Every structure is written in structure tokens, then in C-alpha cells.
């Protein structure tokens, strides 16, 4: 809309900012009790669009606030570098459908190494391109992490994640709260 100067009356916001707002307002009552004993470790992928390209760390800081609230501060391990200076996963810009898988995976090797260095069991990828690419490089390079949507972990923490909604969870979390 900015690029084409298309006038619009509505305001544009991301769901991540809303999750954070709802948690702060107490509307979304979530905590990390479910993960206290299990201690599953999480990291996040900062999608370029909401990190660097949004011009500030606001949304990705909200993302960290939400993730830490639901998995526990001690179970969150950040990548280095991160947020506005994060490495792109290599799936963006159409790369996943551009037809150069060898180059796309070579690009993603940096991301893969970053994730492996965190030692996390789970990567929260709030963007579908990132989700697809991070799963693919995980399989390709032999990583043993799982890639999950943020809403999956939110519902897990809320205790309302149905058995049909657990496709992306590993065996350690597959039964939690059922």
C-alpha cells in the first residue's frame, strides 16, 4: 500500500502485536506451567518482513514477550544475531518456488547453523515461507528440531490444543494436556 500509495481507511497490525496486547491486558491468560517439568527449549525465527522491513524491533520484541510467556524465560534461547539484524532463512522473496533448491539450501545453511547453535528442540516460525524453508533445511542437513506455529504453542499453554492440531509437535509434547 505504501509502494503504490493506495489510500486506505483501516489500520494494519500483525497478530503477534495483538497476542502481546491481549496477554498484557489479561485477556489472554497464558503461562509456562505446562513446560516447567518438560523443559522443552524454544527459539524463534524473525521473519524479515516484521523485523528488518518493519523498520523497528517492536514486533519482534512482542514476539519474544509472547514466546517467553508461554514457554518460560529459561526455555527460550535466542539466535545470534537476531531481531532486526537477523539472517533471512532463505525461503523469502519467492525463493521456495523459484526452482533453485541447491542455492536456496546453501543460503539456508547459515540459518540452520544458527538454530543448531541454540540447541532448541522447537523453532517458532510465524511466517509460512520461513516455516517451509526451516523445515526443509532441517531435513536436508539432518537437524532434529521441530518447526511450529505460534498459535500451536499458545493453545498448548491454554490447554485447548486438540489431538488433531498437533501435526508439528515432537513426541515430547504430543500428549501434553490431552
Amino acid at each position: 500500500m505504501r509502494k503504490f500509495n493506495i489510500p486506505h481507511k483501516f489500520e494494519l497490525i500483525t497478530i503477534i502485536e495483538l497476542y502481546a496486547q491481549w496477554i498484557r491486558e489479561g485477556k489472554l491468560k497464558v503461562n509456562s506451567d505446562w513446560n516447567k517439568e518438560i523443559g522443552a527449549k524454544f527459539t524463534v525465527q524473525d521473519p524479515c518482513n516484521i523485523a528488518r522491513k518493519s523498520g523497528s524491533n517492536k514486533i519482534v520484541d512482542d514476539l519474544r514477550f509472547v514466546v517467553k510467556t508461554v514457554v518460560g524465560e529459561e526455555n527460550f534461547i535466542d539466535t545470534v544475531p537476531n531481531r532486526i539484524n537477523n539472517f533471512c532463512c532463505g525461503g523469502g522473496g519467492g525463493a521456495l518456488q523459484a526452482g533453485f533448491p541447491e542455492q536456496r539450501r546453501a543460503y539456508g545453511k547459515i540459518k540452520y547453523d544458527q538454530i543448531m547453535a541454540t540447541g532448541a528442540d522447537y523453532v517458532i516460525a510465524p511466517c509460512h515461507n520461513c516455516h517451509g524453508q526451516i523445515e526443509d533445511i532441517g531435513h536436508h542437513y539432518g537437524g532434529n528440531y521441530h518447526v511450529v506455529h505460534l498459535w500451536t504453542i499458545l493453545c498448548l499453554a491454554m490447554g485447548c490444543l486438540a489431538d488433531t492440531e498437533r501435526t508439528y509437535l515432537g513426541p515430547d509434547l504430543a500428549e501434553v494436556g490431552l
Partner: protein
Amino acid sequence: MVEAIKIDRLDVELKDEVLDKIPDANFDLCLTCGTCTGGCPATEQFGMDPRKLIRMLNFGMDDEIIKSDWKWVCSMCGRCQLACPMNINIPKLIFNIRNKVPRDKRPRGILGSCDQHIRTGSAMGAAKEDFEFTVLDVAEEIREDHAGFEDLEVTVDRVGAQMVLNQNSREPVTEPEEMGPLWKVLHTVGADWTYPSVMWAGENYCMFLADDEGWKYIIEEFVLHVDNNLKSPLVVNTE
């Protein structure tokens, strides 16, 4: 005797053309410091890197630039520009190089997704009727089977809802059950929301394809629908 290259005699058509569109792209200010290249994950693929690209652009090596497939490996992530001391706009340069390739010669996967989106409202080709059918169907299942969500409400095109949500088409098309957790969160906080039937999908392959016209069309249709028909004050990007 080696002759010095006379810069004023260089033919730099591509550079001039792109600078016409993005006057503040700063290509002439490149210090050749290599900061961009050091931090770019696409460096070395197809023998290219961002500094080299700017050099080639400034030397007028237009054919080589346009021919290289590197423009589809660079993800236009913007990391180079953030680090560049001269704020050189490499991502937009890439976009404009992609734009130089005849539309039907651009990668088939991206092209197909862009065309589908223009035609049906989503890159995976699910028309609005299919989308509406799927979400209402999944919502019904949740109401029946998931305790605590008997009065879950999911609507398409509900006029006056406080927020309009987009949805990546991967969910309704290939894994509809993944929409449930999102709806449960919205339900729990009492959000007043709806999906739009027009250009409901969150992805935008026409942007990746560097198809200005298609991209603009998709956004215009969406804006018109939300502003004029749904009249919602808030649009929520779900990714």
C-alpha cells in the same frame, strides 16, 4: 599500455533506469567496502555477491546482471542495506532486475502462484467459495468436537467486524485443522473478527515475481473490499 576506464564514456543503462524509479538508491556512493557481501547469505551462489552486483551495475555490465539467476536466490531480505554505510538499496535493485525479465520467462513456480492469486484470490488457487466452505466446515467440526468451543464463531464477510484477518492459503488448502488454534485464541479473548472473501490470502507472490501490476491489483481489490464493503477499522496480518 593499459588504459584507464573512462567513467563518463560508460554505458550504464540499467543503472540509470533503476535510478529513475528509485532516485535515492545511492548506487554511485558504493565504497566497495564489502560489508554487504560479508553479511549476505546468498554470497557466492552463482558466483555473485551484492558488492560485485553494484560494481557490475556501475560498470554497465547489464547483460551479465540480467542473465544471472542470482536475482532469484537473493531473497530481498534487506540485511545488506541495513549494514551498508551508504544505505545502498540492493533489495530494490534486485526487484527491478527481476522486473527486466519478460513476465512469462520468470520462474514458473512464482509465476503460477501470482497468476492464481490474481484469478482466484489465493496463490494456491482456492476460490472464495472453496475458502468459505472450508472454514465454515472446520468451524462446525470444532463446535461439535472440541469442549469449551461450542459457540465458536467464524464468519466470512461479516460487515462491520472490528477486524479483518488474512489467512495464508496453505491452511485452508492443505492443512485446515491448523486454523483451529488461531480461532481458539481469537474466541478466548472475545475478538470481533471476520475473514474477507476478496483477496483473503496472506501471501503475495506477485511481489516476488516483480509484477507491479498484479501486485497492485491484488492490494487494490483488497482495500476496496475492506473499506467499502466490510467497513472494518483494523486489518490483521496473521503472519
